[in-house]
């Protein structure tokens, strides 16, 4: 169920990113933030939240957002 939520959120934002070129900057940030918060929430629920996990989600989200922002600027 939690994975379905993640796919729906990221899929929806991803589609909007492709269809709304003028809003790409905030859509890219929204994707990264959503993914990061989803990860924190999931691990918090399962009582497995740890700083290294927070940093892992943060670094992956930041890398993804960077790629999307740079692509948006070049497109």
């Amino acid at each position, binding site marked *: 169920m939690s994975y379905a939520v993640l796919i729906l959120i*990221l899929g929806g934002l991803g589609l909007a990113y*492709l269809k709304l070129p003028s809003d790409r900057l905030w859509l890219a940030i929204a994707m990264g933030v959503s993914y990061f918060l989803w990860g924190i929430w*999931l*691990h918090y629920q399962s009582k497995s939240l740890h700083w290294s996990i927070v940093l892992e989600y943060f670094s*992956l989200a930041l890398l993804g957002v960077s790629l999307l922002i*740079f*692509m948006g600027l070049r*497109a």
Partner: protein
Amino acid sequence: MLSTLTHLFLPHSSNNYKAKTLHISSLSTLMILVMLSQILITIFSRVVPNVLGIATSITAEELINLTNSKRSEQGLPVLTYNPVLAQAAQAKGADMVAKGYWAHTSPDGLTPWTFFKQASYKYLYAGENLARDFGNSSAVVNAWMNSATHRENIMSNRYREMGIAVIHDTFQGQPTTLVVQMFGTQVSSVSITEAAEAVLAEMEAPQVPVIDSFSLTKSVSISLTLVLLTVMIIDTVIIARKRIVRLSGKGWAHLVFLGILLLILIGIQPGLIL
């Protein structure tokens, strides 16, 4: 060599059962490399625009033909090319470049109709389509046709003439191709002579760079995401099969994120319309 590859790409005791590529330090390094590559691409596209820049093959002539072809398909009369409208379009494009705005109305309040009037085009009906950063003429017209308001301009039976300007310049700090398409019907139908076509809006031929900065960024981004996705799949499968317990994020969640990221990067196309 083999142990280095194992250390980098496979969960192993040497990397605390998590591929080194997926460690936070590696992800941070990759992000710094991505940022550095973008800075380098920007610098090179400015220093040597013929080698690295935006690749475009848009011409006013093609845009006119494609627009008229779309109209013909719907049984509408073709629009006549009017060099005065092209002059107005050129002036609008030059104004956008000079003042660095991307809008139908300039920051100091100049509407598209101002440029029609400045070019002494007395219109009964007038319209404007804008586009930027597209790679070819078909992509521009297709994007317009996929937008209700732009399509309405192209397919309107109120217009009789059009003029187009294709401007290659540095816009908002980036090498850009701007397209301004203006439609109109004059109050009095004055015939335009062929001789006036010398003022065709396309003022200079585009310089096609050896490497397109958009394609380069796209290739680098897709390659990086593919590598991470592959390592992540291998990591997730091995960890699941060997039932290794470790303190880490959810592999499947990372796969979803990277998978969607990859689909976006593959699907993204250049160009904006207004």
